[in-house]
């Protein structure tokens, strides 16, 4: 490549392990996150992928964007498939068969595949303590099938199955806390990540690779199509999500919480909400409710982080 490179880009692994020519929407934040995750993972991986946006845009017969070994089967079973891969590699290793080098087993799924239909398989895989990385690309709804709500859809968001109307105001429940659920399985490493903070994301994936057990990474993935935002603001939104406390960046290492950045003051969620069409119908009252909750949750995190530090 270039001879005069002294760029931020130098800090990134240079190899593209996810080929261009994929069919993600214009401005898709999720595929950017995927691209970065794949850079961090390198090529000594085997990936099990759930049905969803990333699987569809990357693998229409006879094309594939995947430069690494990759298997897609169904929607709710990616953690189970990954369990089988991990166990298979283990026994082959013992018998001096199979891949000749250390291989990282990765399971990938969207928020639907992770928090809803696939949560059983994920829980089972974590409980059995398979050595694998689970990456959840969270675009906050079942986007691939046309923007239906998931349990990761934020409170108040408009989706086709949680539409606002005369008697309803969008998603009626609060976002399921998948990171807490993962951590409750006592896995060595769980973290949130965000493509707007690429070096942090890459560092976390590389950390997860070193873990001797299950690792869970929850990746914020802006979706212009489903969130009714312009394709060009995906990265901005990601920064806003962190600065408003809506999507805090933190890690849980063997039960120890590390909140980074630990923001002494959060920007008002209103900025974040006003930037997205899926929240267009929200009244000030509802926005206030959201603000309260976001502040509350962030404070809880800060407390946990403080406790972890002093412990």
């Amino acid at each position, binding site marked *: 490549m270039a001879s005069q490179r002294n760029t931020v880009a130098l800090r990134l692994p240079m190899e593209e392990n996810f080929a261009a020519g994929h069919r993600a929407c214009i401005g898709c934040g999720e595929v950017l996150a995927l691209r970065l995750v794949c850079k961090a993972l390198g090529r*000594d991986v085997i990936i099990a992928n759930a049905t969803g946006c990333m699987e569809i845009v990357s693998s229409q017969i006879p094309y594939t964007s995947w430069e690494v*070994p*990759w298997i*897609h089967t169904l929607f709710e*079973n990616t953690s*189970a498939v990954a369990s*089988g891969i991990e166990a298979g590699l*283990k026994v082959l290793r013992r018998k001096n068969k199979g*891949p000749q080098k250390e291989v990282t087993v990765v399971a990938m799924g969207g928020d639907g595949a992770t928090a809803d239909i696939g949560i*059983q398989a994920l829980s089972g895989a974590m409980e059995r303590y398979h050595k694998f990385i689970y990456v959840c690309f969270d675009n906050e709804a079942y986007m691939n099938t046309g923007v239906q709500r998931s349990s990761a859809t934020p409170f108040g968001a408009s989706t086709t199955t949680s539409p606002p109307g005369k008697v309803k105001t969008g998603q009626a429940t609060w976002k399921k806390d998948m990171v807490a659920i993962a951590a409750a399985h006592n896995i060595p490493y769980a973290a949130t990540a965000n493509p707007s903070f690429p070096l942090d994301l890459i560092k976390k994936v590389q950390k997860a690779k070193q873990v001797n057990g299950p690792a869970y990474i929850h990746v914020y993935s802006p979706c212009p199509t489903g969130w009714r935002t312009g394709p060009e603001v995906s990265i901005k939104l990601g920064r806003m999500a962190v600065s408003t406390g809506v999507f805090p960046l933190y890690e849980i290492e063997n039960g120890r919480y590390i909140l980074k950045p630990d923001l002494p003051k959060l920007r008002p969620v209103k900025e974040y909400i006003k930037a997205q069409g899926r929240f267009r119908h929200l009244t000030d009252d509802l926005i206030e409710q959201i603000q309260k909750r976001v502040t509350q949750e962030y404070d809880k995190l800060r407390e946990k982080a403080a406790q972890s530090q002093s412990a």
Partner: protein
Amino acid sequence: MANRIGMEVSFAVAEAAKLARSEVVAAYPITPQTHIVEKLAELVAEGELDAEYIPVESEHSAMSACLGSSAVGARTFTATAGQGLELMHEVLFVASSSRLPIVMAVANRAISGPLNVWGDHSDVMAARDCGWIQIFTENGQEAFDLTLCAFRIAEDHRVLFPIMVHLDGFHLSHMVESLYPLEQSEVDAFLPPYKYPFALDPAKPVTLGAYGPPFIYTEAKKAQEVALRSTKEVILEVWREFNRRFGRQYSPVETYATEGADTLLLTMGSFSETASVAIDRLRKQGEKVGQIRLRLWRPFPFEELYQAVRTAKVVIVLDRSISVGGPGGPVCSEVKSALYHLKERPQIVSFVGGLGGRDISVADFENIVRKGQKLAAQGVGEHYEMIGLRE
């Protein structure tokens, strides 16, 4: 050559999976398969089987984990029954379309509801279209032998399809039967190591499970169908070799006492043996009756079936499940469909019984044959007889 021993059939299946040097077992317990997976867990724990045992949290995950382990090139075995087979239903189709040579023992069990853990064939009949090779066993020896053969057939590069080995729940799974096991060295000579051509490996990256829009799905299905049908040749080849080595010959359609028979009774699974005794008795009384025992269920053995019914005037089919609201017994409807185009075809009479673990005695079978002949003479249309129904 090992001596004859007595062994619970479930344990014999586990023993076969062990001798085959299975490498990954991902299974969820369900009556009446539990003894198979428990025995395997024990064998792994004792170091007798060097495998990874994945105690998955459901059957859907069991078959899914099998997809993963088979795809990296590990010899994979599992077992299930009834509701378990239903829960993994969608995964079965993927195992076949992905051409992964997983071997699964199914202790055939009734499907809820009402809840019934005992044996019948409703679980397997609900999985007819999933694209697996499916083989029925009738006794402990067969369960042992055919499980071993299944690995050899499935992993052959001309096959690469998953295989179900069916054994009747309780009637076989929980019976102690006498059988001749095989030595490890004999199995090692018979079963080469597993090498999956597209094993997931960073050294040679492949994409498995790409999606097929309308422009290509038809072609994908055609390719799968042609491939599944062509596996029969390899199945026959492997069974012939098994016979050469170990002296037991298996066929897609077994016939019993069919010389001079006008009426044939068609059965599948362990009840075939009971039926044979009835056939013997009837023949002693001068009845011109014989028996067909369907062993290979998928790919359906059309040619062998035509041969077997060639001179019969009446075929009485016993089904151990009902297609509710449909054509009565599934096996009977498939037999009818298979024979429909023949210029000369026998009368086909449908009997449904042995549901939910209910026995069919030798005397019952004798009655079935007699009643079947009577019905054939009358002409029956779509009617099917339910055996032993209290009205």
